[in-house]
């Protein structure tokens, strides 16, 4: 019987999907270790407390809410101090975070403060006797490691999207409390969180890449691809060499040919036949989707999922569907 801590990531007054994933994961881990409580910590500005009950729905026995005007943006020092204090005093078996941009910042700090190790980008976990054993990809996903964590608490940051937030209503008893340190005293100050625009996700780093080819017929039709990328929110736009050579897109957008390798979680090829120079550049993508009017196009053979049809019909429909799906994050 062991209690598990979950850190619920927020942005402003919104609870992020990865936060609920952490709660679900904590619930799973608690259940695997003979049942135990899940205590979830959530920080945010005024208005965040109203989301607490939602967190209980996903398996939290208690929800520790820190609502403070100074927490409109992420405050790494407050989050670190508050989480570490709670975990230390709570005697938890494990503490679950997400390997989001924020989680990558927070989980290691909390672990160091507690004097324990941390493992990020975790795909799955098991209890084996006294250890928690996790799977963690190494070498850009080309090798999978099975790692045993001897530390208590085991600080684990889950890979986003591998745990489905699962409804599992528990007491969700809300405890309102103060941040461990005064947000104004933090040395590092996030002065603004700028949504959308600005941040251009580099092709090599983006978790989702949407690439367009000759099948789009004209440079202005790349708008379809851009709209789809915008619907995903975390997608970069790429192009084939044919299209960059013709000047429809800048050369920096080019995927394939001799060197530009991308390996995103999701790769969507729009109107691309899959000439070898392109395939060579994206073959190691985790999931490949191809939309092409020709069912025999080489890319359709390589793709995990293919839709045969007119890109001008399929892509707008897909964009709309993705927008809908993302609304529930």
């Amino acid at each position, binding site marked *: 019987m062991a209690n598990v801590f979950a850190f619920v990531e927020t942005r402003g007054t919104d609870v992020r999907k990865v936060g609920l994933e952490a709660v679900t994961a904590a619930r799973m881990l608690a259940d695997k270790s003979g049942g135990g409580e899940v205590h979830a910590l959530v920080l945010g500005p005024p208005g965040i407390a109203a989301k607490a009950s939602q967190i209980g729905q996903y398996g939290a026995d208690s929800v520790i809410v820190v609502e403070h005007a100074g927490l409109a943006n992420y405050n*790494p020092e407050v989050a670190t101090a508050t989480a570490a204090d709670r975990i230390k005093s709570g005697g938890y078996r494990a503490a679950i975070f997400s390997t*989001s*941009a*924020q989680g990558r*910042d927070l*989980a*290691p*700090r909390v672990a*160091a403060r507690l004097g*324990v*190790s*941390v493992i*990020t*980008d975790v795909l799955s976990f098991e209890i084996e006797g006294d250890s928690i*054993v996790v799977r*963690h990809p*190494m*070498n*850009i*996903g*080309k*090798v*999978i*490691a*099975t*790692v045993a*964590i001897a530390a208590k608490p085991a600080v684990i940051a889950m890979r986003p999207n591998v745990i*489905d937030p699962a409804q599992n209503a528990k007491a969700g008893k809300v405890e309102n409390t103060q941040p461990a340190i005064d947000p104004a005293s933090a*040395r*590092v*100050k*996030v002065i*603004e*969180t*700028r949504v*959308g625009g600005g*941040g251009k*996700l580099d092709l*090599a780093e983006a978790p*989702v890449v949407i690439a367009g080819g000759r099948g789009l017929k004209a440079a202005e039709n790349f708008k379809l691809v851009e709209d789809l990328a915008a619907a995903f*929110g*975390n997608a970069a736009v790429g192009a084939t060499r044919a299209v960059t050579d013709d000047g429809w897109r800048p050369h920096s957008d080019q995927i394939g040919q001799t060197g530009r390798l991308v390996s995103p*979680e999701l790769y969507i090829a729009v109107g691309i036949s899959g000439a070898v120079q392109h395939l060579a550049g994206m073959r190691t993508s*985790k*999931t*490949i989707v191809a939309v092409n009017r020709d*069912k025999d196009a080489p890319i359709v053979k390589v*793709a*995990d*999922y*293919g*839709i*045969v*049809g007119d890109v001008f*019909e*399929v892509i707008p429909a*897909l964009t709309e*569907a993705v927008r809908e*799906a*993302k609304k529930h994050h």
Partner: protein
Amino acid sequence: MKIAVCVKRVPDMDVRFRIGADNVSVDEGGLKFDINDFDAWAVEAALQLKDKNSGSEVTVISLGPDVVQETIRKALSMGADRGIQLKADKVPFDGLVIAKALAAELKTGGYDLILFGKMAPDSSNGVVGPMSAELLGLPCVTAISSLEIANGKGTAKRELEGAQEIVEFPLPAVLTVDEGLNAARLPSLKGIMAAKKKPLEVKPAQLSEAQLSIRKLELPPERKAGRVVGEGAAAVPELVRLLQTEAKVL
């Protein structure tokens, strides 16, 4: 300014890896090694600050066996001033062990700024930078994509999912560097020659006991054959469903 940059020697990722006979390490036969790209960007950031602030000194630190001296020399040939090797038989997998060893060395340096790369592609954990900062009790900003330092203070941008954070911090501080901050300068011929004469100190690494251990390494399963989900816009709902439930990428 006194700047320290921690660097790691990593294998080239553009290969098919083989698992070693011991099942817990990667077979290094035929692998080519170089400085971690993220760490090279960190070195570049330090050098750009040195270029702007005369009288600055950049120290490069790496933990590991003697081969890491090559990596330190690479940074020296880019323009760093001195190197320190924290000698250890192997680079531990447990980031806390590395962070503790680095922090013990960094503590004594009186550095205004300590830079790390955001992550190393081999261990793929990305924790040593923020852990070191915590152990040193220093302010820390991770994964910066832009940086300005002036008058003992700094401003940086961090990339989030679909957003950016603008962050301010005082010096001394620890920063970890993300792609997009800069492009690492190539060593000049003169730089390569000068690097041979720059000081490289070797000290034993203070290694604590690891709390993480690799039980086994495996290659991921082969790609399964794909399928055509349907035709036209009508196939979209099914595709989305599969992306959510089966592929888990949405």
